[in-house]
């Protein structure tokens, strides 16, 4: 996925999403705003995970898309069961949890770590390959050499 020409669009979308989510919070539309929050997060992760403007599709599918689906399900199921058993003892539990809260544990908390934290380790080369890192260091060394003292900035 080539994102190099879409960065400005993504950043403008990020700003619009922050404003929209805030206004939705003011007006009581917090539940749909939670899903927009997920879009906000995945836009950041897509930008941050791209190498030279390109996001690897495998990295996008796992962990990013898997995470997005898991958390979307999580909020939808929590909302559904929260409404179904509002104000009363639920007539069943999931592993002992309130059916609404079980999804916070299983998909939001454990699922979040299983996708993002674990997936990040599994796909680490697609996020930053040895080749790209070494190339980056060579590029920086070459620039410093070519420019001589120009880059010896005056920072303390």
């Amino acid at each position, binding site marked *: 996925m080539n994102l190099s020409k879409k960065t400005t669009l993504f950043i403008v979308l990020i700003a619009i999403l922050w404003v929209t989510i805030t206004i939705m919070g*003011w007006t009581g539309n917090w539940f749909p705003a939670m899903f927009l929050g997920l879009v906000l997060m995945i836009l950041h992760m897509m930008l941050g995970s791209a190498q030279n403007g390109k996001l690897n599709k495998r990295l996008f599918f796992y962990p990013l898309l898997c995470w997005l689906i898991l958390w979307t399900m999580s909020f939808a199921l929590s909302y559904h069961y929260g409404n179904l058993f509002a*104000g009363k003892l639920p007539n069943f*539990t999931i592993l*002992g949890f309130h059916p609404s809260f079980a999804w916070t544990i299983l998909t*939001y908390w454990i699922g*979040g770590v299983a996708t993002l934290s674990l997936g990040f380790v599994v796909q680490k080369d697609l996020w930053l390959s040895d080749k790209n890192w070494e190339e980056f260091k060579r590029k920086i060394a070459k620039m410093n050499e070519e420019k001589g003292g120009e880059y010896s900035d005056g920072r303390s």
Partner: protein
Amino acid sequence: MTAGVKTLIVIFSFGMIVASFLIGWVAKRKVTSAQAYFGGTGLFGPFVVGFSTMAAVASAFAIVGIPGIIYSTGNTMTFWMLSSAAFAMAYMILGKKVRAMAELGPVASLGDISDLRFNNNRAIKAIMSIVLFLGCVAYLASQIKACSTLFAHLLGWNPILAGFVIFGVLTIYTAISGEVGGILTQAFQGLVMVIAGVIMIVAFFSITKGFGPLLEVVSTAGKVTDGEITKVFSADILNAWGVFPGSVAMAWMIIPILGTIGQPQVLTRMYALKNPKDMPKLGLYASLSHMIVGFFAVVMGYGALFLVGKGLIKPLASGDQAVFAFADYVGVHAQLFVYAAVLAAAMSSASLFLSLTSGIISRDLPSAFGYRFSSEKQMKISRITIFVLGVLSILFALTSSEMVAILGTFGWGTLMSATFPVFIIGLLWKKASSQGVLAGLITALGLNIISLILVRTGFKWPGALPWYVNVITASIAVTVFISLFTKGATEEDLDERVKAVIDL
């Protein structure tokens, strides 16, 4: 609590303070440059950095305040406290870029990265430093106050004496070894929190017999009264949303998950990592250790709910008593580990914020105003600043309750409002201009102060949305909007090396 238990807690806590001091003392050998002293730059592996980051993020509030909020208002807070995946998200978004900036030049503080990205723009560095300073001082004072008051109450000491014993030692080792000692002691303290967490989670299951019985007790207990104190139970306490308005649940999901990336405890640790290829492992270690500490905090609130609902203890006068009430019920070993966890959480966050604050005062702010010193002199000035600031913070935190409460308004959201324009937008987008970022920072500073005043006057925010969401949104929107029409530190004006970092 018996005198014997108190003595054991003192021995246990004192042992932890001494161990922290020794780690800090030994760590001073690694301080060979300003980058090492101020940032621990490129010195540590993912395990140490992961535990250190988690410990600095999980403050005393996480161990004491969170169980209290869960006891009082139910599961809303679990969105925040079970946000363990946020570390991986943060590193995925910004890890390689922040770490790569340390390859461009000597990076020892967030101010250095701001200099590199925005061509030594002094106004950006100064305003960012001021907002960070407000957030850091607020965190520092609240750690000192909470921990010193707790131990003073427990031992019958004067709070100032307790403050000097705990945070005086911390000030000494932080001044001697800087962030090198800071990172190592925080990793040790993080380990203590994780061990305490495992023990208390086991204790929770052994007392409640699991979540099923807990749900039944909370759903059926009704009202439990003792004298003037009444605790009202309902099934909704344990559904996913708790009893707060939904907009609070929304904010407490988005702000900690995305906001972790904007915390100085997380940002500064990105360049402390030796090999950037280890960033995913760092995310995993931080996430796993946070899972234990986060769950520990959550089940302490549940434990107190269970005991009160079952009539095994009296309803609590204040939610903040939840973790201690549960530990007291469990017995001596639980009391030992809970107090150790509170101490570890307070010390790890305090040392981080003490060293950050002194770095801002002795290094970033002077450089923003055009004063430059050699590395040796910077470290010397910083050591003196840490000593002075450490002593003043202890005195301030323990003698100015009203002011600490006022400053306590600042925190996670304040820090986000300063770091998002400079680092998140600045390092993801080549067109983030110096004018845009400066405007975003001025907005953040102004709105943080206005919000502080409004919060103190009891202003009701629309939709019950926490105030800092508005400030963060405004600072980001202003940064992006102004950047679309200005060009400072972009295109030809952007250092080619920084372009390479953003592309990485």
